[in-house]
């Protein structure tokens, strides 16, 4: 992905607003853009969700099939997360195999779901060593308005929470919901000139040197973190982002992801 082109004037504008404690769309530094989540938008998928986070628009589809387990975990199901930055979503995305940005996004979304143990993988086992459920989480970014990470992560968990194991289709019993145990939520912050802002817009993301994504669970514990970008962060900044992210995740979870 080549970088977004942005005029110096616009950069200065955002920077100057930041000094006054403001953002271009009038949000507070710790405020998210408007979020809408619709689930079950794709009937053919076992679970799905459409997330709009401000101008960012993603659709997540969960397909579930039976397959053979990995030899080192014969009694556990498999989760595979994929995300592509397709050229439909932005003038700077190009077709071709996923590049590092897309791979990083997919792997962080995957880590949030995997490391929080939000899916009980042992319950995805049908016959140990032979047959398990394979859960494919595919994130389709339709419009890049900044902060794809949080939109993708919200979409993935929302889609999983509505997904069913298609047992009837595969002749292994009755359909049941995907065994969920936790609801991890990713919160991304950017650093701009020393200030920390949550849920960066496209412009804010472009001028910021660094992003930090913090994934936290229902109990307020952390299950994943990823710093992305070339400028460093201080310990104080990191600790501040962790604290505020845990609070924000709680808020988002209560508002959008009630089971």
């Amino acid at each position, binding site marked *: 992905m080549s970088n977004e082109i942005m005029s110096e004037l616009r950069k200065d504008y955002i920077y100057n607003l930041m000094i006054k404690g403001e953002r271009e769309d009038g949000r507070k530094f710790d405020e998210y853009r408007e979020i809408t989540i619709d689930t079950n938008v794709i009937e053919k998928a076992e679970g799905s969700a459409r997330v709009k986070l401000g101008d960012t628009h993603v659709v997540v589809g969960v397909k579930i099939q039976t397959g053979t387990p990995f030899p080192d975990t014969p009694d556990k199901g498999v989760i595979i997360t994929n995300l592509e930055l397709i050229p439909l979503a932005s003038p700077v995305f190009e077709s071709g195999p996923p590049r590092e940005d897309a*791979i990083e996004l997919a792997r962080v979304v995957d880590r949030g779901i995997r490391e929080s143990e939000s899916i009980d993988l042992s319950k995805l086992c049908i016959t140990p060593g032979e047959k398990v459920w394979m859960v494919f989480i595919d994130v389709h970014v339709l419009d890049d308005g900044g902060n794809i990470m949080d939109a993708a992560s919200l979409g993935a968990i929302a889609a999983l929470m509505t997904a069913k194991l298609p047992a009837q289709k595969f002749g292994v019993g009755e359909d049941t919901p995907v065994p969920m145990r936790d609801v991890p939520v990713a919160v991304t912050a950017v650093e701009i000139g020393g200030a920390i802002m949550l849920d960066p817009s496209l412009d804010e993301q472009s001028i910021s040197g660094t992003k930090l994504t913090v994934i936290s669970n229902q109990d307020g514990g*952390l299950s994943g973190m990823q710093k*992305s970008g070339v400028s*460093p962060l201080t310990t104080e900044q990191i600790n501040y982002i962790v604290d505020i992210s845990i609070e924000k995740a709680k808020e988002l979870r209560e508002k959008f992801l009630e089971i």
Partner: protein
Amino acid sequence: MVKPEKLIENGIRLDGRKPDEIRPIKIKVGVLNRADGSCYFEFGGNKVIAAVYGPREVHPRHQQKSTSAVVRYRYNMASFSVEERKRPGPDRRSIEVSKVSREALEPVIFQEYFPRSAIDIFVEVLQADAGTRTAGINAASIALADAGIPMKSLVSACAVGKVDDTLVLDLNKDEDNYGQADMPIAMTPDGKITLLQMDGHLTRDEFREGLEMAKKGCLEIAQLQRTALMEKYSSLMEGEVNE
């Protein structure tokens, strides 16, 4: 491999270390002839080698930047570096590791000194034993200095994790496989964090404590990196080595 019953016994880890102790480190500077800078780095069972080429022309040309150098980082694991043979070539993991490692080093490189040129960093993992990305960053940082690339400081990297509900510095393979959390960190000697990743389970307080622990580990490594570089170049200055 089976999970050991206990990873820590009486405050001592399976390999005999205390919780806040790093594994033995061996550093050799300038081990490759063709590269502009290089470093061999052993970190416990990890054996990695880093080479730096550049500043040099950018190929393909469209990647070049008119106002600064481009930094490229390739992390690669040898197929024989792990228990089960790894399929050669980049996979999704190594692409991600390359990205975050490059971003860990970029802040210290004076890229604006070399417009329209490339600084290429290649890291080969010859043997992997948990913590290869941190070993790679430590090696690459020394190789950059060895190549004479102007830098603001060195970068040191170290992981902290949680096993048996205890925070431990620099996880070994068993602790990585069966532990509860893993958090690699890279930082400059003045405490700026340039790489931060985490997976597993940590509470807010454990995270804070872990971060401080990792910082101590990084400072220890920084000292060793510095010593290794000084050893090579102080002897050069005294004229003992004629190359």
